[in-house]
């Protein structure tokens, strides 16, 4: 799960990670109130989940309170387009107003799981401010990776090593060690899956501050972090994906024309692949899970039919725990109760497949049944031509 920069900064501050002084505002008046409490110049930053906000015009430096109010009124309600939002952009509902920092150096600090070792890994670079994948590509020697033993946690010596590698002056090493140690504590205790401080700045008056904060959380661990769960902003997600998640369906919207309904994530991806191989394109990824009930199938149809781009539905199920006869009954009931106005192609295999096929055939509804994945995909493409 993603959160906004302002939520990330508020959480980090609780863990003793130093962030610039500031606050979040939903109106220009609130922005002005916050700016009044700050000293010197002020930065107004649009709060959306996508990156590239500065280039898109969503981050502005201003001189005083009245300018802060004026700028907030311009940014709030704007449709911010960045390279990550797509051309449709994202509506800005909140701004983060903070004290401008007098920057001497921009650094990078991140913590992420290294899947190949199974260890949390701290990444540090003196090349802050640019995309870290760019740093990894252009200056791999400038990207330091320090794995942490999760049973021991982070030791001062590891943190010191990172602090020195960032080229911090002697009088900032202690602050650096504290910053790194607290950031790791945050990552660990909060079940984060990614923390990225880019840039981490060294100011001219020798302070270390998290100028930006990108934080992702492990969805599997949200049940032990109610406070984080409440930070979810569904306006930042695709509306169909939000609806699907309320039905406990694992759905990702894509831009093709064939709606897919599959049990199991691997088979769901393979189904998308075979649609492509047959010459069409998938409209979504949808895993209905191992024990799809009639209700689940109905809800899945609702989601697929809400997507105007869907011109055919491909159901691919390998019945294990989920029996084909139960699935078939679910599909028949769903098609009767949801208004399904596109061809439906079904491929079923596994437990009770004969009973399942009989239910489909005797339903009086117009299903096409595929014999194997390739044949079914072919039937989907033929149906699209009609």
């Amino acid at each position: 799960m993603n959160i906004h920069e302002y939520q990330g900064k508020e959480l980090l501050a609780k863990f003793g990670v130093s962030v610039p002084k500031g606050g979040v505002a939903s109106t220009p008046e609130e922005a002005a109130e916050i700016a009044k409490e700050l000293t010197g110049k002020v930065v107004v930053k649009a709060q959306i989940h996508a990156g590239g906000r500065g280039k898109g015009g969503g981050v502005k430096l201003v001189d005083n309170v009245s300018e802060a109010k004026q700028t907030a009124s311009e940014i709030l309600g704007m449709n911010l387009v960045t390279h990550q939002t797509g051309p449709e952009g994202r509506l800005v509902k909140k701004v983060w107003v903070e004290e401008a920092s007098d920057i001497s150096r921009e650094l990078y600090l991140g913590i992420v799981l290294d899947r190949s070792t199974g260890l949390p890994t701290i990444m540090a670079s003196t090349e802050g401010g640019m995309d870290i994948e760019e740093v990894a590509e252009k200056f791999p020697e400038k990207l330091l990776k320090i794995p942490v033993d999760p049973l021991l946690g982070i030791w001062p010596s590891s943190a010191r090593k990172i602090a020195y590698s960032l080229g911090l002056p002697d009088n900032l090493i202690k602050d650096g060690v504290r910053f790194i140690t607290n950031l790791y504590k945050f990552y660990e205790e909060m079940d984060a899956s990614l923390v990225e401080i880019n840039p981490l700045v060294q100011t001219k008056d020798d302070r270390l501050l998290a100028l930006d904060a990108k934080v992702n959380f492990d969805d599997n661990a949200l049940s032990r972090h109610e406070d984080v769960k409440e930070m979810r902003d569904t306006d930042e997600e695709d509306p169909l994906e939000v609806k699907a998640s309320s039905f406990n369906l694992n759905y990702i919207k894509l831009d093709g024309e064939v709606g897919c309904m599959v049990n199991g994530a691997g088979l769901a991806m393979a189904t998308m692949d075979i649609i492509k191989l047959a010459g069409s394109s998938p409209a979504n990824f949808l895993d209905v899970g191992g024990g799809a009930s009639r209700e689940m199938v109905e809800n899945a149809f609702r989601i697929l039919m809400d997507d105007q781009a869907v011109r055919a539905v491909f159901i691919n199920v390998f019945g294990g725990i989920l029996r084909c006869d139960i699935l078939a009954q679910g599909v028949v009931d769903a098609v009767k109760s949801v208004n399904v106005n596109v061809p439906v192609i079904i491929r079923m295999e596994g437990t009770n497949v004969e009973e399942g096929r009989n239910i489909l055939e005797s339903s009086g509804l117009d299903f096409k049944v595929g014999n194997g994945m390739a044949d079914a995909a072919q039937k989907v493409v033929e149906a699209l031509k009609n």
Partner: protein
Amino acid sequence: MSILIDKETRVVVQGITGREGGYHAKQCMNYSKEYASGGGNVVSGVTPGKGGEIFEGTPVFNTVGQAVSETGANASLIFVPPTFAADAILEAIDAELPLVICITEGIPVKDMMYVKRYLNDKDTILIGPNCPGVITPGECKMGIMPGHIHKQGSIGVISKSGTLTYEVVSQLTEQGLGQSTCVGIGGDPIIGTMYVELLTLFEEDDDTEAIIMIGEIGGTAEPDAALWAKENITKPMVGFIAGQTAPPGRRMGHAGAIISGGEGTAQEKMKIMSESGIHVTESPAEMGLTMAKVLGV
């Protein structure tokens, strides 16, 4: 012969009195009866607080240690809910079971980080979590897969996915190709056993003639294994990667991709696998067929 499990396997099911655990323990017992002439089977269960109960004729204990000493269990199958699953795995490791298979989906990554680290200097092999389990057709089923689609034979199957594993097994069986052992390694970011360890076991297994490896996007496990296999595996291999049409960046943060040196797209993975001598098919409908062609049957 086979790998990991056979007709001598004595299974303790952790979470046997739960809905999932109970249902699948029963299915595993049925498989033993119907397809394995009473071979590898469930011998006991564990649910803390329910020690002394009987489940389908097998005793339930409070701890794994008791189940091991009382019933001679030598492998554990775990169906414990996600919040408690890591604890259940640790208990099984501490009972010195040589094999632990965890089916549970949704275990927090941090919990698995601890488990994986704890496993480092232990002899236990952990399969999963978030996997369908392991089956040696005709000998023992330890998992949630439909037993009847399998056939005894000489193809080793390793896969990250659940239903896609059933798909490949059914395609193999359709081609008349039986399986020595099928292993679902699980789709989570941290899993107990990766491809390389299992490829080693299949290479050493006299009854395995060829290996099929099914992967998916994300991470670098498949190309790492392919490069390793090029030097170490003499048996023919077939491969498939699911997610050729998956959009980038939906499941993992950018930083994760850097660490592993690139996002791990299906195309990249398939290229490295092909270059390493693995017979890669682009079509998920032709996994079994490709194996049949490679073996000339």
